[in-house]
C-alpha cells in the first residue's frame, strides 16, 4: 500500500517559481519567528501555560496548506501554531491569544492548544491527541453531503496513530470515501516514546493498509515534496477518490513542551536533524533555481521578523481578557444559546460567589497556587 512520493518537476510551483517560493518561504519564516518569539516570551515569564513548538517542522504545515484551496478546511493539534499560520491566520490575534488578550482568536479562553482562525477554515487546534481526527472526518462527510467540493486536512502526530480515535476515524473515512487527507507529522516521538517502540511496523504510512486507502511517506522537511504529495492526495480527495494517509517525516528541534528534559534522545540526533533545516534547505534550493535573489530572501526574513515583532508589540498593548465581563455573564461564554435568557427560572451558569479577589485590594488577593 505504501507509495513513496517524489517531488514533481515543479513548473508553476516549487523553488523555481518565484511567487510560490516566496510565499512558502515567508510562511515557514512566519512560523519559525512566531514560535521563537513565543519561546522567548515564555522564558521571560510573560506567557502562561505550556507550549508545544513546531520549530523544525515548518515545511510540513506549509507544504500541506499550500496544496489547499481557499474553502478547504484543516483540523490541527496541540502543536498547531504552524498549521494555523499556514492556513492563513493573522499573527496578531494569534499572539494576542497566547498573551491572554480579549482580542485573541479565542478571547483568551483557548490559548495555544485551541488556537484557530475559524473563518479561515481551521476547525481548531486540539489538546487531545487524536481528538481532531474524527472531527475532520465528520467535516469531510458534511462537505460530501453538502456537495461543497471542499477537502479537509487533518494534522496529527505519529503518537496519535496509536489512539483508537485514529483507527475509527480512518475507517469511517475509508468506507464513505470521504474527501479528507490524514496528515501524520512523524517527528519520531510521541512525547518521549519513539515510533520504534510505539509501533511494530516501520512506517505510519503502511497503517493505511488496514483501511484500504493509499499511505504515502514523504520527506517532511522538504516543502516541495510535501506540497507535491499533498497536492496529489488533495486532488484524489476532491475527485472522489477518498482519503490518503500522508506521513511527513520531520523532527521537532525543541523539547516536547516546556517541561521536557530531552532525556530520551541524544544530542547527536538533535544536531543531525537541525542540520536538515527545512528553511535553510529551501533557501538553498531557491538560490540554486535562481528564482529569488539573496536580497529577496533577506526581504522575506525581514518581513516575517517585523510581522512577528508587530504582533508582539501590538498584542502586548491590547486589553486583557476581562474577568469581570466574563463573570458577569459566563453562560454567554459557555453556550451559544444560554438558557435563562428565554426560559424563566433556568440559569445555565451562575457565578455563585467567585471572583472575590477582583474586588479586593489586598496583596493576598492572588493565591499562591494559582500562579
Amino acid at each position: 500500500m505504501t507509495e513513496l512520493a517524489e517531488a514533481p518537476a515543479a513548473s508553476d510551483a516549487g523553488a523555481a517559481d518565484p511567487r510560490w517560493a516566496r510565499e512558502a518561504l515567508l510562511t515557514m519564516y512566519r512560523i519559525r519567528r512566531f514560535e521563537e518569539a513565543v519561546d522567548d516570551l515564555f522564558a521571560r515569564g510573560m506567557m502562561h501555560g505550556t507550549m508545544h513548538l513546531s520549530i523544525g517542522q515548518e515545511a510540513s504545515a506549509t507544504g500541506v496548506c499550500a496544496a489547499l484551496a481557499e474553502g478547504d478546511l484543516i483540523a490541527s493539534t496541540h502543536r498547531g501554531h504552524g498549521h494555523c499560520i499556514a492556513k492563513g491566520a493573522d499573527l496578531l490575534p494569534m499572539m494576542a491569544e497566547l498573551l491572554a488578550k480579549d482580542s485573541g482568536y479565542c478571547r483568551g479562553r483557548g490559548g495555544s492548544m485551541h488556537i484557530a482562525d475559524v473563518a479561515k477554515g481551521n476547525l481548531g487546534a486540539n489538546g487531545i491527541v487524536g481528538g481532531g481526527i474524527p472531527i475532520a472526518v465528520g467535516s469531510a462527510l458534511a462537505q460530501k453531503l453538502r456537495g461543497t467540493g471542499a477537502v479537509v486536512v487533518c494534522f496529527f502526530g505519529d503518537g496519535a496513530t496509536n489512539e483508537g480515535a485514529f483507527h475509527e476515524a480512518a475507517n469511517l473515512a475509508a468506507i464513505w470515501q470521504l474527501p479528507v487527507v490524514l496528515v501524520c507529522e512523524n517527528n519520531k516521538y510521541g512525547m518521549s516514546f519513539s515510533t520504534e517502540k510505539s509501533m511494530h511496523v516501520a512506517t505510519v504510512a503502511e497503517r493505511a493498509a488496514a483501511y484500504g486507502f493509499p499511505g504515502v511517506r514523504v520527506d517532511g522537511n522538504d516543502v516541495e515534496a510535501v506540497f507535491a504529495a499533498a497536492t496529489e492526495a488533495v486532488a484524489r480527495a476532491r475527485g472522489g477518490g477518498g482519503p490518503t494517509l500522508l506521513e511527513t517525516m520531520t523532527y521537532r528541534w525543541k523539547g516536547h513542551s516546556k517541561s521536557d528534559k530531552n532525556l530520551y534522545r541524544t544530542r547527536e540526533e538533535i544536531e543531525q536533524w537541525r542540520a536538515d533545516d527545512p528553511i535553510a534547505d529551501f533557501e538553498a534550493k531557491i538560490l540554486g533555481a535562481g528564482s529569488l535573489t539573496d536580497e529577496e530572501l533577506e526581504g522575506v526574513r525581514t518581513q516575517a521578523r517585523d510581522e512577528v515583532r508587530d504582533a508582539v508589540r501590538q498584542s502586548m498593548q491590547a486589553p486583557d481578557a476581562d474577568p469581570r465581563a466574563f463573570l458577569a455573564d459566563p453562560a454567554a461564554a459557555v453556550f451559544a444559546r444560554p438558557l435563562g435568557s428565554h426560559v424563566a427560572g433556568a440559569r445555565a451558569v451562575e457565578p455563585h460567589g467567585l471572583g472575590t479577589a477582583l474586588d479586593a485590594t489586598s496583596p493576598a488577593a492572588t493565591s499562591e497556587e494559582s500562579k
Partner: protein
Amino acid sequence: MTATVEHSNGTAAPAAFGYVAGSAPADAPAGERVITYSEAVREAMGQAMAADDRVVLLGEDVGVYGGAFGVSGDLHGRFGGERVRDTPISELGIVGAGVGMALSGLLPIVEIQFSDFTCQAMDQIVNQAAKIHFMLGGAAHVPLVLRAPGGSGTGAAGQHSQSLEAWFAHTPGLKVVMPSNAADAKGLLLSAIDDPDPVVVLEHKLLYKTSGPVPVEPVRVPIGKAAVPRRGTDLTMVATGVMVSRCLEAAARLEADGVSASVVDVRTLTPFDAETVLGAIDETGRALLVQEAPRHVSFMSEVAARIAESESLYRLLAPVKRLCGLDSPIPYAPQLERVVVPQVDDVVAAARALAVVG
C-alpha cells in the same frame, strides 16, 4: 456570533461555520393523538428532516434494521442512507464525526444504542463537543444532538442498563434532557435539534413502548423548563425519566390513603429549572427525590443541595428524602434487577414514611 450563511451556500469555508440556530416557532395549539414514545421520537426526527435538509441521523443499525430499539424505524426508507446513516461499531468515531458535521453546516443527530456506550465516546462528548464553543471564544458552536437510551429493567445486566445522566449534567457546555413521556420525547428532541449547542437526550428503554397523546405538529417543548404533572398538598415528588410515571402511579395510590402528592418532572437536568422545582417543593414542605440512577453524587444530590442552600430549607417540614438506585451495577436476574431501582411500592412506602415525619 456566527455569520448568517445558509446550508445551500456554495463557498465551503464560511459555510462550514454558517449554521444559524433556527429559532423555535411559538408553540401552537395542535391536534393530538396517542402514539408511543418511540414513535414520538421518530416523528420528531422525521419532521425535522423533512423541514430542514441539514438534519441527518447517524448511528449503528439506524438504517434498514431500524435501530436497536426500533426507534429510527422507517426513516431510512423515507430519507435514504445518506441522511439516515448506518455506521460501523465506532462510538468515538461517530460522535466525533457528528461534532465535525455540526461544525460544518449540518445538524447531526447521533444515536448511541445504549447510553452505556457513551463511555466509548466521552472524549468527543466532553472534551470536544461540550467545550468547542467556549474554547474557540465563541467563534463556532456545535449543534449536535446525542440520543441514547438509558436505564434498567430489560435484563440486559450491568453494561447495558446504566443511568449516566449525572455525568453529562455535571459537564459544563452540555444541555441534558430526559423526556419522561411521549409528548416530551417529541417536543424536547425538536428543541434539541433547534439548539445551537450540544444536547444529550437520554431516552429510556422501558418508555419506548409506552404511549401518550402527542401533538401532530412539530411542537417544541422548551429546554430548561420542568413540568408539574400533578399538584398535591402533602409532599412533592421530584422525578426524572421512567420514575416520573412510577411517581404518578404512586401518587394515585397514595391519594386513596389520603396522602396528596405533587409530582415534578425535571425534564431538563442542565440548565436546571430551580424555580419550578423548588417552588413545587416549597408548596408542600416535603421533598421525595426519585431517580433510577445510583444515589451517590447524582442528579438528585443536586436537587437536595439546591434545597439545602436556599430559602426552601426553611419551608421544609421534614428532611429531604432521596429514593434512588442502589450504588451497585445492575444485576441480570429479574428479581435482583427489580430491587436495585425504585419501584412503585418503594415510592409509596417512602412517601408514606415522609408524610408523617416532622
